[in-house]
């Protein structure tokens, strides 16, 4: 089972090119799509979720043309949108039951069973009779994943599900996601590196509509092994460091700044560090910008 994206491009009416010739093959298991805000993640997610049209390119799931055979894809799809609301004055149980019917679970008994099971396993059972509008952010996200799991989806898309969740709630959510079967494709789009490193077997990094990297996190980390250098510097020196070195990230640490640089060799009294996925992420974005600047 695989989802194959070929030469996908999309430009919005306001001129923003959200996807630039994206090629990607996604296989079973949890796939992380990492990128900063505005990178085109949601556009890609929505396109796969049949909500948006592409200007060119193809998306194919097991021989089904996602862009054309929308009805067929929807039967196999579970989708948790980046941002969603709820109908007013409706309980989680009733809403889930409603969604289940729309998903084609028209047998009443089966529907009831799955609704109960999902509510229990997303830990919402005790509040199932309460109005959804009163749910906290984490509960709402869990409800969202519950509805995405309805039916037997082959493809689950979760778009930025952890944004805005507190650490405990995020933890719970990761826990839930990790439980989703290994036999289906789960695409998790996020701008939080930990989401991917915690959960994903495969990943891709996208920025400004372009696919920058794609592979297994461990392999991608291996690729930058030995090229990431760290140094603690004074705040005032940041500018000169940024001018002189290929700084990929800088973060505050006890009033000073820890910078990471990408380089084949030690730039200047830096310390070599074991790269993390974060370094992969930042270096790929930084390098793509450099590349872009060079091309101009």
């Amino acid at each position, binding site marked *: 089972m695989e989802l194959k994206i070929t030469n996908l491009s999309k430009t919005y009416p306001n001129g923003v090119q959200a996807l630039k010739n994206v090629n990607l093959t996604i296989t079973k298991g949890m796939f992380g799509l990492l990128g900063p805000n505005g990178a085109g993640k949601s556009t890609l997610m929505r396109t796969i979720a049949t909500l948006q049209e592409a200007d060119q390119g193809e998306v194919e799931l097991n021989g089904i043309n996602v862009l054309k055979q929308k009805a067929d894809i929807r039967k196999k799809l579970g*989708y948790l949108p980046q941002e*969603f609301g709820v109908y007013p004055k409706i309980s989680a149980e009733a809403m889930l039951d409603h969604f289940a*019917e729309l998903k084609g679970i028209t047998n009443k008994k089966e529907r009831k069973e799955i609704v109960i099971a999902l509510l229990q396993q997303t830990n919402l059972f005790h509040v199932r009779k309460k109005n959804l509008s009163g749910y906290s952010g984490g509960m709402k996200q869990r409800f969202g994943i519950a509805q995405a799991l309805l039916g037997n989806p082959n493809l689950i898309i979760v778009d930025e599900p952890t944004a805005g969740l507190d650490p405990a709630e995020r933890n719970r959510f990761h826990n839930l996601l990790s439980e989703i079967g290994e036999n289906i494709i789960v695409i998790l789009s996020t701008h939080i590196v930990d989401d991917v490193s915690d959960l994903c077997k495969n990943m891709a990094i996208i920025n400004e509509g372009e696919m920058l990297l794609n592979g297994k996190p461990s392999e991608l980390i291996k690729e930058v092994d030995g090229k990431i250098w760290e140094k603690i510097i004074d705040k005032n020196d940041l500018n000169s460091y940024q001018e002189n070195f290929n700084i990929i990230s800088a973060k505050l640490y006890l009033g000073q700044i820890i910078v990471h640089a990408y380089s084949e060799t030690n730039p200047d009294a830096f310390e070599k560090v074991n790269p993390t996925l974060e370094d992969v992420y930042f270096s790929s974005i930084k390098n793509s910008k450099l590349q872009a600047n060079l091309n101009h």
Partner: protein
Amino acid sequence: MFFRILSFELKYKFNRPAIYIYWAILFGLSFFFINAFSGLVDGVTVALGGLGGKVYTNSPYVVYNMTAGFSFMALILLPALIGSSVYRDYETNAHALLFSYPISKFDYLGGRLAGGFIASLFVFTSIGLGIWLASFMPYLNQDFFGENMFMSYFMPYLSNVIPNLIIAGVIIFAIAAVTRNLLATYLGCIALLVLYGVAGTLINDIENITLASMLDPFGSKAFETLTKYWTITEKNEQIIPFTKLIFANRIVWMGIAGLIFIFVLAKFKFSQSVFQLKFKKNSRLVFANINPVLKVLKLNLPDVKQVFNLKSRIKQLIRLIKFETINLVKNPYFLGILATGILFVLINTAQLGKFYGTTTFPVTYQVVDILGATFTLFVLIIITFLSGEIVWNERSFKVNEMIDTMPVPTWTIYTSKLSALFSVQVILMALIMVIGIIAQAVMGYFNFEVDLYIKGLFGIKLLDFILLCFLAFIVHVLANNKYLGHFIIILYYLFSSFMGSLGLEHNLYDFGSDPGIMYSDMNGYGHFVKPFLIYKSYWFAFAIILAIFSNLLWVRGNETTFSKRFTLLKERLTMSTKVSLVIFLFLFAGLGAFIYYNTNILNEYKTSKEHLLESVNYEKQYKKYAGYAQPRIVEMNINVDIYPKKRDATFKGYCIIKNKSKEPIDSVFLNYNQAAEFNRLVFDIPYEKVFDDKKTGFAIYTFKKPLEPGDSTYLRIDMDIITKGFRNSGSNTRLLYNGTFLTTGFLPSFGYNKGYEITDEKKRKKYDLPEKQLVAKINDTTALQNTYISNDGDWIRFETVVSTTPDQIAIAPGYLEKEWEENGRKYFHYKMDSKILNFAAWLSADYEKIEDEWNGIDLAVYYHKDHDYNIHDMMKSMKKSLEYYTANFTPFQFKQLRIFEFPRFSSFAQSFPNMIPFSESIGFIADVRKEDVNYPFWVTAHETAHQWWAHQVIGANVEGATVTSEILCQYASLKVIEKEFGIEKVRDFIKYDMDNYLTGRSNEPHYEPPLLYLRPGQGYLHYNKGNIVMYALADYIGEDKINAAVKAFAQDYAFQEPPFVTSEDFIKYLKDVTPDSLQYLIHDMFETITLYENKVTDVSYEEFEGKYKVNFTVDCNKFRSDSIGREEEIPMNDWIDIAVFSEEINDSTRHEQEIFLQKFKIEENTKKFELIVDYKPSKVGIDPYLKLIDRHRNDNTKSTSTLRN
């Protein structure tokens, strides 16, 4: 700070396009209306805002009315113009920031309100400007316009628009400040307008005009009170003054607005959530659930089957319909609109079927009609609003992305939403039905015809509403912007209501329309059903085509641009969609073609303009034949076969025509019904048809040898009236399944017919027609040769055989000679033994009857089986009338008198020789159990009197023709009422007559003649003024003397040959019995238009030797008016009633009774009285019983209690 906020607000408002768009819309509307009603479109007569007749479009009265009317409707803009000034801060969340600044509440609220008000005033100036500019348009007929006066345009703003903007503006502003919700402001605005409508209805019932005028927050009642009886001259010349009443009203309501503002000022708090109306506590679930330790769970879901077959599709559809319907029904704003609507309907229910202050029984069709009609406005609002809500529901709650990715076909979503909107309509209809049944029960009427409710509401109204749902829904899908969608729908409503005025009259392009359907208890829905259903099928086919397209363009996903949706449309266009599109296109086109075949090929389709041009051409071409002498019918022997099921009739037989003139007749000009088929139309003497205009139905026959004076011949007629298919509008309601009512009007007539001429002077001028003499002068010797009923004959011998189906009875004038069945049809042979007027009718219906007899005269009432409520009153009235009329006038000329009910497609009763057809709507269902005026009794007495006044003495076809018929019938019936019910009941009638006369002359389209010279058709003169005048004369001169005069007149003129009698002949008899001292009355009442302003001022009384001395002053003014209402005061020298009333006579009821009544001669404008009376006086009056025409009747009496010394 106030001014800084104000100027900021103004800059904000004036920098945005909205305000200019509103300005342009209002300007366009007012400009367009003035154009449309000032001759832009021919063939359309619209009387709106007092327009019409000789009143100028730019007269102070019309400008005031139009400005006030438009600005009233435009109040719906106030939420956007004024509400938004305070609402905007909440919407943009600017209030969090703004409220932390040091500004005072007054500066903030006052500045915002003032800014909103100024912006609104700017927008509202467009109305006056639009009306003003329209008056200069060179293409308009300048006869519609008089001189432009600045004050005409200024006064409506000063006394209406500005105060109303302040009043409504403050209320809207207050709602916005309280609720912080734009929609609530809109609903508040709708509620304000509706409550105004409700109040208007209630106010109408309030006897006290001052109170009513004060209660109306928008001041229109005060304006109405002022101008109700204004004549043409006053309307054209008088600037609307600031009367005490208008001024007081404006001050009081602006004061109330001020109080509201102060209240808001006091209650308003600069915090983020001030006095928000909370119905429920927020139920946010917050759990302190910090447990960072990972608890491994196992996702273990039961197996489920996803089924996507048809059965599950249907299950999904049903689920969605339920879901969507519940969403709609629970919408709080829907409930708000609905509650307002129900309130409005309930209040209107109290007004069911009033006629002369008497209610009819709330029969089901009336309840359905009235409730359906009053509720329609709310249904339209609900459809507009809910269609937007339901199309946008997912997007408003941001669940669209989840729903859109569900494996549900788009058509399921689309259909479910549309069906939910339909379901709401079904619920609304059920609600109306329940309200109707409750209303009937409350009024003590228990014959609930549930089947009629179902047919009328679910079979007719519902279809219209569902079609509108389709349209509104589709507009919202296509517009893809909620507010734009609402706006387009409102524009459509406006457009469709004025389509007809623009000359777009064919129902084939008026979405959802039909040729009309009307229920009558006698005829059911009858022949209306078939065309109605065909038209509706046609529109449903169209609606479904639109629905299919909009389903294809439905926004699913995030692609909302039209071009993308259009690309998707092509993708979504599946084979089955194509097939259904083709099917419905085929249906639509097929039904359209079938309709066209019926309306335009089987029948003739003419627009109003074509009708107008036809009249113009008729007059231009044939007027030259007007003076030619024509033969007259002296005997009619026509057999009529009525085929109710097919709605056909044949007229077969002959008329004997005679040359009654003094010259030979060589040509006959025949007007004939062009829709009829003539198998035979021949004369017995040699003739030749020399001209035939088949389009207008006008032919000229020339005799080979002229018909000499005194000679006669036969005109043989064999004519079929065949109903073919159906028409675009206006089906023949005289030929029905049950209740056919044919008259001699269907037969060919002789000579040029002035009745076809158009009477509107402006149109005549436009088409180069000379000014029309609306009626022949009283000394016109040619016109004196004809009665006002018919130009074809006067007294004729009459015989007929009329046939119909065996389940019905057929009737015609005359006595039944023979009745038989033959070939499955029933035949009735009627013959008259004496001469009758050339005015006959043939009826056929399934009747019940009651019979009785009075002094050898057979009496009968033929009625529809359920309509037996008042038949005994009618019977009694016939007897009482015959008794009074035979005793006081002349003998009754027939041996039989019968009343026949006919369906309500016309609502009149009409007297034919020995028969009175009587509409089911005007007496048969009257509820006279507790009312003052028993009008079935009165109408019967009036129509019975016509057997004398018209059928014995008939006026010539000149001015004043109906003086000797209608006025004498009014007098006769008044006397019968007085004998039966007492003088108090007569006085109740007179109150209505006074009001109807004064409003009638105010709406006169041409000119008001003195009573003696009235034109036929001036009902307000011959019915209303006639009644008042005869009532007064009988009182002043005495019933006996009047009766003596009337009797002598009848004896002298009954059954006379031409020239016929005139009103001047009659008045001589009245003058003969009138004493010299009262001769002025005849002059005032008949020969001129005379009005009085009588009132009592200064009343006081004191005890005086065990009695009471009452002192009071009366003010009297007398005016003479010309024909367009220009008045001149004339000296008083008149006898007028002075009366004193007391509550003391009847201690238990305290019912006021007259204790003194006497006529005094008033020679001065002011006169003081001192009277001694036996009881404690409660009220003093001058002319309290309204014998003289007086526009202000309330001041004719004055209570003593109010001004006790």
